[in-house]
């Protein structure tokens, strides 16, 4: 296959055959959650598995659950030190929370390429650029995955009420929730032919990527509240599967509810019958690209905002963002979704186009205006029409 097309000027097309001429390389992967979390961390782990399959001379060392709850008093940078001491020649941090650690590691080990999945320190045009030659950022354009998910949600809701189980509030999550809303609104108006006033789209933030009793809201409760409150479709942005688990319970109890999972392609498995779909990450191609560069000594600091392969959204070798459809999606709705994806891919549908307003009524985009990458990445507020706090 071919590696992911990216919007980075340095991205190169190169043959994907396994070239034994390249040096053996140990990659140290630092995961914020458990390697088998059926979510975010597992997608990274599987992405690296993909790389080691493609490049047998690449060895993977990983440490999971690197977060202050699971490993108190351990910092990501310390784990990186240990991995480097064990021979890792390239380090990947997989969470937004590691931005300081990634920078610290890159500074402390200038000869070790450091990849921070999510984050913007390597983005020259971004707000937080740090001139660190061995630090890169990689992030798929999940906003499109979210738009598709939002559309699927709007196609399936009977009550016109969509719930979003949000993690914590930051630029990334605001971006993704807004994207989901844009997708929902579009499909609600254009395919369901209904008035946007009749669409309720509500986000409840639990405060972290997973539940910590006494610290975060309980996602189980939040999901229950959604389902009991008439939100018959809930999409989730957290790492843990409460939305699915509670949907299953509600469905078993006779409620007509459905859910959308997040991140991993097997996300529907918990309750296949009521699963609408899963927007998924596919880190493999981007990681493969970066690691090949490192092997050939050509690693450079870059900001990779990797695009989906619109021709074949779920192609594991080319598309960094995908959407796995669930059983609950009817053939008719499948057709609408195909239309929507096609439109996004060929540019006939551009949802980042004005006029759009923020929650507080100020302009996000004036009529006819198209969002810049910075406007998309740094989303200071949720969009008008979304219920739930922005800050």
């Amino acid at each position, binding site marked *: 296959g071919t590696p992911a097309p990216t919007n980075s000027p340095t991205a190169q097309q190169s043959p994907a055959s396994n070239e034994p001429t390249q040096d053996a390389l140990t990659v140290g992967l630092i995961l914020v959650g458990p390697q088998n979390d059926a979510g975010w961390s597992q997608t990274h782990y599987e992405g690296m598995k993909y790389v080691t399959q493609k490049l047998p001379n690449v060895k993977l060392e990983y440490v999971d659950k690197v977060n202050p709850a699971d490993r108190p008093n351990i910092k990501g940078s310390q784990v990186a030190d240990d991995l480097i001491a064990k021979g890792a020649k390239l380090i990947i941090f997989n969470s937004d929370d590691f931005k300081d650690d990634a920078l610290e590691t890159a500074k402390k080990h200038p000869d070790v390429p450091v990849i921070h999945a999510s984050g913007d320190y390597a983005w020259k045009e971004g707000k937080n650029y740090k001139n660190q030659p061995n630090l890169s950022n990689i992030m798929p354009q999940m906003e499109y995955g979210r738009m598709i998910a939002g559309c699927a949600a709007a196609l399936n809701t009977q009550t016109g009420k969509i719930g979003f189980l949000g993690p914590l509030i930051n630029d990334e999550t605001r971006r993704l929730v807004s994207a989901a809303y844009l997708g929902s609104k579009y499909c609600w108006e254009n395919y369901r032919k209904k008035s946007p006033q009749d669409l309720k789209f509500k986000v409840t933030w639990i405060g972290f990527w997973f539940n910590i009793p006494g610290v*975060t809201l309980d996602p189980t409760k939040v999901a229950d509240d959604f389902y009991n409150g008439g939100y018959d479709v809930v999409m989730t942005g957290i790492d843990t599967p409460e939305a699915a688990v509670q949907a299953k319970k509600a469905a078993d109890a006779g409620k007509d509810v459905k859910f959308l999972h997040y991140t991993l392609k097997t996300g529907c498995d918990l309750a296949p019958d009521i699963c609408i779909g899963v927007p998924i990450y596919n880190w493999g191609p981007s990681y493969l690209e970066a690691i090949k560069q490192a092997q050939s000594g050509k690693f450079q600091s870059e900001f990779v905002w990797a695009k989906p392969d619109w021709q074949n959204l779920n192609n594991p070798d080319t598309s960094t963002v995908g959407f796995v459809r669930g059983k609950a999606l009817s053939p008719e709705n499948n057709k609408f979704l195909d239309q929507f994806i096609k439109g996004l891919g060929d540019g006939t549908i551009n949802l980042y186009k004005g006029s759009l307003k923020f929650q507080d009524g100020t302009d996000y985009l004036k009529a006819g205006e198209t969002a810049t990458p910075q406007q998309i990445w740094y989303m200071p507020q949720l969009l008008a029409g979304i219920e739930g706090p922005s800050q």
Partner: protein
Amino acid sequence: MDIIVILSTAIATSTPLIFACLGETITERAGVINLSAEGTVLMGAMTGFALAKYTNNLLLGFLGAAIVGATIAAILAFGAITLKQSQIAIGFVLALLCSDLSSFLGNPIVRVSGPTVPSFKLPLLQDVPILGQLLFQSDLLVYTSYLLILFTWFYFYRTRQGLLLRAIGEQPYSAFARGTNVVLLRYLYTLLGGALMGVAGAAFSLDFKAGWSHRHTAGYGWIALAIVIFGGWNPLRVALGAYLFGILQSLASVAQSTIPDVPTQVFTVAPFALMILVLVLTSSEGLEQALKPLPPSVRRLVAQMIRTTPPAALGKTFEPD
């Protein structure tokens, strides 16, 4: 959103806490503090889930969790009752040890899907206006917890064995002098309480937070300990405390959209602040003074309802001879 719906969710999802809190209440009423609640609930959740998954039998899952809970309690009982070591120290160590042990042993079953308690609406009762929707449209585990609350209360205050249970927590030497086998009963109730805490864990992993992951129920054990005190060792009030906690949690998510200016932490911290406040209010001398003017019979009733004096022998070792 419909207030009944919020309340019914809050009540149902408080079920694991009900089990844990009642387990702790029974243990403490017998004079033993089981500070290991945090670890016990985690171990119960882990083993309950693993067993139910591999045997595909929910009952076995709950049974296994109960046995694990009782086993942990047995270690505490042996150390505290037989070896007469500090209950606090042993319980605390067990809390930390079992938390880590659950992560260590439960690693292979993280985030796999497993069986869950099916929902079951109680025939007839579910149709009672308001109450039906509030209480009787969940599952058997929830109904069991209602019965457990009532039974525990009845047992404490209306049966001979219950009177003995309170007696050994108040004055073990006096109870011994009246022919009670204090050591045996303390073992029994500590194990029973531990078993209930184990079941609480399974109630999480097989029902209300279905599944298992590292530190799956972290925090709830400490919360249960706090609620028991809030409840003044009275099963009804303890249950009320657990429900209140559930309702506050629900309110937190409701409040996020209705009053976004209030930080979420206010609601998550509120139960603890509330617990401390209640403790201060009810254990202070001022309360006694305030009750003074009431006629004695009323005063006794009120005092019993708001009393937060712990069982007199709570945490103390019993050394006859």
